[in-house]
């Protein structure tokens, strides 16, 4: 279950204006994603680590999230060096491991970890509800925001319904194997889930109509840009400029 466990805390980063955090995290993510040189990428990773450190989050939980992403990256390391065109670094049996492939994989690893850590620090330190309001203040289209918020609200309800269906199948002796009966059963389960989701959506919409919903959402949150935000604006600007210098200026 989504616990939003990083959103509780009282560090400086937690207290920043969420609108500012959303903007700065986005800019930072672009800068890191578009960098290519190792000094810049390594510096970004260190800086992101520092941000997470300043959030004073549970280290084990952060490690779990990172491990999840790096699980995918392992596959990248298994495939890209063997298939990327370029100078072979060494041979693994009949396969040549290209040095370009290794460099590309290393870049992707550094970039994704740096961006993920920065998002944990800057974005996961607010609740989904707060982020929704922040996005609406940033003039992101309301439909997108409510897609996010309603997803967050109903994903558990749908999960619960899925479990209920699965339970009812298993108490009637359903054991998944790899045969047509299993595939058919899963197809029915998923089909039923869609039917229920659309019924649910209709009921939620009706309930909203009954409370005077007329197509527009209003937000309760009022944000203020404080002195702390100003300080952090300076910190983040310097960090981003620093990364750009490392990326573009050749150090002898």
């Amino acid at each position, binding site marked *: 279950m989504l616990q*939003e466990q990083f959103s509780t805390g009282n560090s400086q980063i937690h207290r920043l204006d969420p609108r500012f955090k959303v903007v700065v995290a986005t800019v930072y993510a672009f800068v890191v994603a578009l960098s290519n040189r190792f000094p810049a990428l390594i510096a970004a990773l260190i800086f992101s680590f520092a941000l997470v450190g300043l959030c004073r989050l549970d280290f084990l939980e952060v490690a779990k999230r990172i491990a999840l992403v790096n699980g995918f990256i392992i596959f990248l390391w298994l495939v890209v060096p063997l298939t990327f065109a370029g100078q072979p670094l060494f041979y693994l049996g009949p396969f040549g491991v290209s040095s370009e492939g290794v460099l590309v994989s290393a870049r992707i690893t550094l970039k994704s970890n740096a961006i993920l850590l920065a998002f944990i620090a800057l974005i996961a330190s607010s609740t989904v509800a707060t982020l929704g309001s922040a996005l609406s203040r940033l003039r992101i289209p309301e439909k997108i925001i409510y897609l996010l918020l309603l997803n967050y609200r109903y994903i558990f309800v749908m999960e619960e319904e899925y479990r209920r269906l699965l339970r009812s199948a298993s108490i009637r002796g359903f054991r998944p194997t790899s045969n047509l009966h299993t595939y058919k059963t899963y197809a029915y389960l998923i089909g039923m889930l869609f039917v229920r989701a659309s019924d649910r959506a209709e009921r939620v919409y009706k309930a909203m109509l009954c*409370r005077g919903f007329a197509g527009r959402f209003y937000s309760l949150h009022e944000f203020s840009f404080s002195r702390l935000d100003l300080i952090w604006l300076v910190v983040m600007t310097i960090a981003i400029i620093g990364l750009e210098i490392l990326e573009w200026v050749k150090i002898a």
Partner: protein
Amino acid sequence: MGENSVIIQLENIVFSYAGSKPVLDDLCFTLEEGTKLGLIGQNGSGKTTMLHIIMGLLKPSSGTIRAFGKPIETKKDFLEVRRKIGFLFQDADDQLFCPTVLEDIAFGPLNLGKSPTEARKMVMETLERLNLKGFEERVTHKLSGGEKKLVALATVLVMEPKALLLDEPTTGLDEDTNIRIITLLNQLDISYVIVSHEYDFLAQTTREIYGIHDGRISYHGDSNTLHSHYHKHAAARTPHHHRALHADVEGACC
């Protein structure tokens, strides 16, 4: 009673879902100001359908709806009805769609044009009124079933409705929440209609009990005479009457 004191009036309502025989067949129903009314009927008898028609969520194929003395026909008329009549859905998960309790309860007042500050104040007052102080920052999907129901009731009451429609308010709730809801309802000074299949619950929260059968509504009686004592046994949850008082009413048992 004069025209003004009638809150809702349904006349000769016919409604059927696509491809089946009418659920409501020439149904007539009146809710007057100051009445607390129970409506009992079996599954599929059209109880919920009737409430949805009052709120304009379903459109009858014929018949007229009047609210507060005026005929209700257009979409705009129904917007007005929804401002004045609160509707508690059977499944609280349908009603609570915002991430936090505060935002969910504030949704109605904000739609009515209140400022964020006013809305926040109304939420706090409603929470206090329902003994839910401290719930404002709770995440709606993490509440227990009973808490969800009470918060759902808060989302409706915060809009200061002139009348309430409650669809099976006690389904799947524990005894404690049940008692809390009964106490709350008895303290309310607005009219309401409760749809339920639990006779005991209706007897404790309403004065007049009607039955819905074959698409029509019939008067069952005053809840005091129908039911003067409280049952613990399961049979009380099915419609029944006490022979000595109402031998002539259908479904007599015990």
